[in-house]
């Protein structure tokens, strides 16, 4: 019996006059990997921020591990969920190592310095994301792909229970997309953890996610297992564009005509 990490009841969310969801119910259980798909402007990012407690919802309830969102202090919440944002570049020079180490902040005491274990943890994920050798680099000189891997490394250093990711494959070359999504699955699609990611590439979503949330952009949505939802009919409905399914090397692939 797996636990619910995130529970959303009857969530209503809108941006200006656009309705993102009217009645969204979600149960994200430990070990699962969810993908959010939808057309441009459907409110995927806003929904992700609302689930993270960074954007107010119109109504409804969001709870982590059985406790309502507003019951958490910001720091305690940062141990429950981590967020990978679409790149928001800092105007400030700082090193890659400092940025990745910032992920430890929710685990430190108020004036606490990082312990040797924290430094080790940061070094370990820098290696896992293939960034070793760049520790001392100014983050402003990194390429788009390196910066995206640094963001992923920061999230891995943070070690939250639930990872909320906004287009984790952005700026990554096709090979790195697969490597990074595999890495994220290894860390979060396991006991005690889960991940939820906004993706634009439906084929990546079908390959890596076991559950999907399809956001239409007019308040309608579909949520369920990938097996149930990844049909040409649903995806044509979602994107308003004809889609067909093909089998390539035993993997299901979508083809947008």
């Amino acid at each position, binding site marked *: 019996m797996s636990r619910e990490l995130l529970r959303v009841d009857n969530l209503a969310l809108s941006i200006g006059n656009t309705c993102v969801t009217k009645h969204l119910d979600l149960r994200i259980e430990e070990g699962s990997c969810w993908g959010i798909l939808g057309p441009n402007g459907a409110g995927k990012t806003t929904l992700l921020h609302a689930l993270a407690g960074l954007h107010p919802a119109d109504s409804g309830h969001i709870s982590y591990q059985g406790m309502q969102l507003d019951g958490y202090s910001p720091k305690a919440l940062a141990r429950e969920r981590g967020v990978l944002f679409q790149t*928001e570049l*800092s105007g400030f020079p*700082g090193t890659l190592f400092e940025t990745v180490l*910032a992920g430890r902040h929710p685990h430190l005491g108020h*004036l606490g310095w990082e312990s040797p274990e924290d430094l080790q943890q940061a070094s370990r994920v820098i290696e896992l994301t293939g960034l070793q050798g760049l520790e001392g680099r100014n983050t*402003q*000189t990194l390429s788009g792909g390196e910066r995206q891997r640094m963001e992923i490394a920061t999230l891995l250093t943070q070690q939250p229970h639930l990872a909320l990711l906004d287009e984790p494959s952005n700026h990554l070359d096709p090979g790195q997309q697969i490597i990074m999504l595999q890495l994220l699955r290894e860390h979060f699609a396991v006991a005690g953890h889960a991940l939820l990611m906004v993706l634009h590439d439906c084929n990546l979503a079908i390959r890596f996610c076991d559950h999907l949330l399809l956001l239409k952009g007019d308040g309608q949505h579909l949520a369920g297992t990938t097996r149930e939802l990844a049909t040409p009919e649903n995806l044509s409905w979602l994107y308003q564009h004809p889609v067909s399914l093909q089998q390539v090397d035993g993997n299901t692939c979508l083809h947008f005509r």
Partner: protein
Amino acid sequence: MPRHPLRKSLPLLSLLVLLAIGSLGVSLMTGSVSIPAADLWQLLWHDDGSVQYRIIHELRLPRTLSAFGVGGVLALAGVLMQALLRNPLADPYILGVSGGAAVAVLGAMLLGLPLAWHAPMAFAGALASILLLFALAHQGNWNTSRLLLTGVVLAAGWSALISFVLSLSPPMQLPGMLFWLMGDLGDALTPTLPLVVLLIGLILSLWLSPALNLALLGPQRAAALGVKIRRLHIFIYVLASLLTAAAVSIAGAIGFIGLIAPHMLRLLAGSDHRILIPGAALIGASLLVLADTAARTLIAPMQLPVGVLTALFGVPVFLLLLHKSYGERT
């Protein structure tokens, strides 16, 4: 594995403490009557009834310690403003705090109020400017780009008013007003106030420093990592403004210390605020002590306003730092 941030920067911080002590020593020894290093220690602690003892205790020590306090406070305010606006080019005066102080002081001088009123008037003017900006920028949603734009416009408004007051003033009063505008430590002979302000500012900023590190990553990321970002922004704004107000009311608007000291430290030790804050305060304090020593000795018996020297020295140093940091970036 990179070394622990504290261990890595301990040698640098120790060096800066030595620099600070050295600058205090140089300032106490230098002047119309030069005092040899060998006698200085004795004179600091033992009243031998000599003129040198009185020079040190009644003139040089108060002024030197005031310079130390004001320099440290300006560097702290610079670090905080830069973190608040996420812009390494922000200085303590960018949001108009010194402009409000200047208008109040020049007004007081024009009305012929006695010297003792100048510092309280400056503080009141700075406080009025802080509150005015907060009220203007706080309507609707508070964000730092709005704060910056409103502050810069407010500062421009103050500077128009300053020109207005200057053009109304009788020629006799102009030198005093210009000295104040440039920043001058000639009247700063009560060091307790700046030192206490420095100590309180240092403690509060160090307490904020982990959150400041995250604030540099951007408001969203800071919030996601557990920082109450809106509360932090307001707190930094108030703290930085009050520190600036205190410095300005003691010594006028001394430029460049709040810009250069944080920059030097960022080049030497990176942008971790737990190191940056004490380090920049030490550099800022030492720089102003040395600049003030030069201001009162270069063309002795006449004195220069110290702000002239910090600007003359600040412009090339700043350009050099800028060049160096861009050189490293590529």
